[in-house]
């Protein structure tokens, strides 16, 4: 245990939280768009467009099949274009957001599919516009499932930030590799692992709490 440990871990933690927070926001926005589009454009959906659906689905599968560490490398030029650098936490947010969006898209898609088709039909039968059905029926009805899915996704993004740390993103992952692995600082290694465990636990607790609170408000027992 050395005196620099607390400072190193503190900076790493801040960087990790910064990356997780912003990547989650952007990935969520992009992923919601993808997920909703996938659900509504499929055959029998509220805005059927099978060709768009097929293309989008293939594109998502394509991005998802690239190993994340390689995807970051591929996206480095884009980071440089958007934030002016390919190093550091801010640059990593670009890669993390784009890398996680297709995954979030699939998670959101599967949550939205849990809405019974009958509810959508009932909304159609009163003459609701497809956009109204998306905003007032599909999303609110799927909300508890969406929250659970997003929890999984944000935790995955946390893991991704550690991977991104291996190629210059900063954060706890980078600390673990630079100090724990390359300089044999076991204390730092253990510290980063404990902090990441803590972050994941807090995320999971929060997600569970929110989705349960929604269910409780609607008086649904699990």
């Amino acid at each position, binding site marked *: 245990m050395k005196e620099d440990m607390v400072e190193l871990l503190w900076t790493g933690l801040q960087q990790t939280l910064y990356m997780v927070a912003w990547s989650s926001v952007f990935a969520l926005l992009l992923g919601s768009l993808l997920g909703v589009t996938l659900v509504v454009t499929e055959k029998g959906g509220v805005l059927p467009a099978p060709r768009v659906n097929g293309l989008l689905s293939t594109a998502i599968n394509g991005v998802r099949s690239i190993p994340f560490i390689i995807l970051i490398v591929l996206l480095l030029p884009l980071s440089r274009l958007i934030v002016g650098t390919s190093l550091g936490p801010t640059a990593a947010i670009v890669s993390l957001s784009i890398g996680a969006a297709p995954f979030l898209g699939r998670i959101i898609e599967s949550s939205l599919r849990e809405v*019974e088709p*009958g*509810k959508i*039909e*009932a*909304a*159609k*039968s*009163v*003459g*609701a*516009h497809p956009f*109204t059905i998306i905003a*007032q*029926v599909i999303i*609110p*009805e799927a*909300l508890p499932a969406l929250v659970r899915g997003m929890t999984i996704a944000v935790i995955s993004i946390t893991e991704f930030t550690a991977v991104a740390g291996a190629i210059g993103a900063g954060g706890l992952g980078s600390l673990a590799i630079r100090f724990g692995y390359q300089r044999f600082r076991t204390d730092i290694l253990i510290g980063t692992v404990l902090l990441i465990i803590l972050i994941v636990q807090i995320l999971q607790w929060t997600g569970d709490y929110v989705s349960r609170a929604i269910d409780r*408000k*609607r*008086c*649904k027992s699990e």
Partner: protein
Amino acid sequence: MIAVKHLNKSYATRAGQVSALQDINLHIEKGEIFGIIGASGAGKSTLIRCLNLLERPDTGSVEVGGVAITDLKGKQLRLARRRIGMIFQQFNLLEAKTVYGNVAFPLRVAGFSKPETKRRVAEILELVGLSDKADVYPSQLSGGQKQRVGIARALAVEPAVLLSDEATSALDPQTTHSILELLQDINRKLQITIVLITHEMDVLRHICDNAAVIEGGRIVESGPVEQLFYRPESETAKQFVNIFNYYKDGNTQEKAVIMR
């Protein structure tokens, strides 16, 4: 009120085209309660869903209140659907919304103002006997209460027609009875035309004026309900009447079981 002419509907399956409805012709008068009875798989659900175009027929036309809704799509169709309410076997209430929110939904869709919506929801909840449940979520309600909310939602924008897709099939006999009474009451008070599909002869006998019997995707018999009871001609009608008569004298519990 409703005229169905030469309606055909088939589905594409792995085994090829499967015909669900063949040459359906129906004429339903304004203000009547019209029943469509048939065994499961006979096509009755497909038929009622063709009346508000939840399913689009392959050929033939459906006219509701003088409007050929089979010619409509997009905005025109959405407007036409506001004249046709629908209730479902599984109620299909929105769990994210309270009873108030569920009944207000079609009003908001139709562009009612907030005060108008409030007034109308109160009025319609009174009609279905749920005035005290406005702020409750659907999961706290019994099946019968849920269906009352379904009815309130369907009637909120004062449609000319109410379609009932097996609305009582998920309910126990007593509740079924009270929902049927409510439908009858609504029919009288609001002069609304009701089309209901069922597999229970009891439902027909209870509230329908005229009825059609559907068998293998075809209408095999139609006319006043008494006629179906006393002089059934089709196999399906005979079977239904036989079952009904067999259990008529049994105790209600027993009857309820077989009728469902």
